[in-house]
């Protein structure tokens, strides 16, 4: 499982700006950012290199932050790769709450992050032939 930061955001100008600058000032490197929004509020989900430091810094800035475990799966950055992964998840009868990707253009590899409603999702996905990444992969990146 990879540790993801979830940050509550009011739908107001300057909120993402403050979030990004707060992490930047602490020299924290974001690998992936995914903002889900409604008309009234948003939630920013972040994968970064120093999760604990990020939680502390953001809380000191007054942000509401929680951490969530998400499944990180390595896939090739090629057409159809994501479809194959989602088919395997769907075939196992697992619900996806949300999902987003990180792409490395040079190596042509991608990582898909998803929150799954299933305690042994990682085993199921590995059994389907995918490489599941642990949290440590994203630290020091």
């Amino acid at each position: 499982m990879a540790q993801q930061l979830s940050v509550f955001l009011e739908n107001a100008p300057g909120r993402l700006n403050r979030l990004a600058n707060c992490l930047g000032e602490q020299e924290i490197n974001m690998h992936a950012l995914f903002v889900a929004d409604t008309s009234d509020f948003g939630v920013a989900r972040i994968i970064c290199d120093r999760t604990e430091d990020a939680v502390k810094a953001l809380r000191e800035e007054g942000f509401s932050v929680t951490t969530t475990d998400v499944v990180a799966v390595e896939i090739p950055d090629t057409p159809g790769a994501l479809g194959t992964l989602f088919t395997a998840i769907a075939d196992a009868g697992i619900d996806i709450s949300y999902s987003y990707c990180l792409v490395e253009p040079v190596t042509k590899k991608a990582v898909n992050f998803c929150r799954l409603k299933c305690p042994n999702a990682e085993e199921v996905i590995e059994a389907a032939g995918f490489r599941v990444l642990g949290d440590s992969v994203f630290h020091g990146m």
Partner: protein
Amino acid sequence: MSHQYNPSVESMPAAQLQALQQDQLRQLVPHLYQAVPVYKHKFDQAGIDPFALQSLADLAQLPFTTKDDLRAAYPYAMFSAPTRDIVRVHASSGTTGSISVVGYTTKDIANWAECVARAIVAAGGTADDFLHVAYGYGLFTGGLGLHYGAELMGACVIPISGGNTKRQIQFLRDLMSTGGLACTPSYALLLAEEAAAQGVDLAALPLRFGIFGAEPWSENMRSQIEAQLGIDAYDIYGLSEIMGPGVAFECQAKDGLHINEDQFYVEVVDRETGECVQDGQYGELVFTTLAKQGSALLRYNTHDISRIVPGVCSCGRTHKRIERITGRSDDMIIVRGVNVYPSQIEQVLLGFTDRLAPQYQVVLTREAAMDAMEVRVELSPNFDFDEISALERLSIEVRTAIASVLSVSVKLSIVEPYSIARTEGKAVRLVDRRTAE
């Protein structure tokens, strides 16, 4: 007669209490007619003979004294004692308008201290206790009111006043071996929040009781305060026009506030007709100050909405009880023709403390000649909001609950924790931008 400062008065037989009130009133009415031109004018206009007043029931014939009367009399025209006998003035906080000034004689200050001493003892305070008074000291009656009452019953006052919340936590932690806290209920919650931020567990301190007033609060807010501070929380009622805090107070039964009836005569009147209602019916509280010298008032209409709690209190006191104040009828807002009290919204929001923080603000605007009401409430720092659906579910539940209580739909904005400005005195719960636009 446990927890009574002055049992012979507080538990006086009802008939004796009534006779006392009648005697005081028979002296007060002619005195005010002669001493205060405003009253002479009122009586003459209404064709009432102040010397003919016989019983308490006759009082209902007299006209009300209003906030406007006090404002028009600014600063001293309604004082009922010579200014050389006045030893102190206080002024109203002017929640809804301009200032009114009230004067106190030496005897008034002593009587007031007695009222507050009764409230502190009723909350469980003893001469061995400390009382941390975080009400503002000054023209506002909160600080000095609690101060003199605590000294009279023998507690040790910590006159810290409002403000400097960090230092408040330090004093609560270091100075108080045992005792109580007095401030506004919203400030009590702010203190709990600040303590948590400093890693101080208020519930683990020897603080036993709190006396909270100067703004309406709900039963849910009481539970919040009691849980977060680890204390018993008691309501105290008063307003500077009548005296200050201590006009009425809660006892251990927490079932209504006993009016200090040996000093104040209460009537509950219909909002529309001004007629007295039956005991138990809701209406506006009207007070006559029976013992005051400096600024005595006849039938002052507070516009505070409450009712007389029926029955006899288990604590043994004979003095009548009023229910906690629902709101002040001039705090009442009319949104698209529907009457709304901010306290009703608070009651709803405090039912969601698993997900919302007890901090909110109501913002009124006018869009295309239509009133719009926005309720801004903070997300609880402990709520796991990662799934948008959990936030949306919360938003729908809260909107539905508010709509069912108010019969009017609202825009709900769930905002970030700690984003609504905190105050050290009365909380700013209502922002009305309708007139400014």
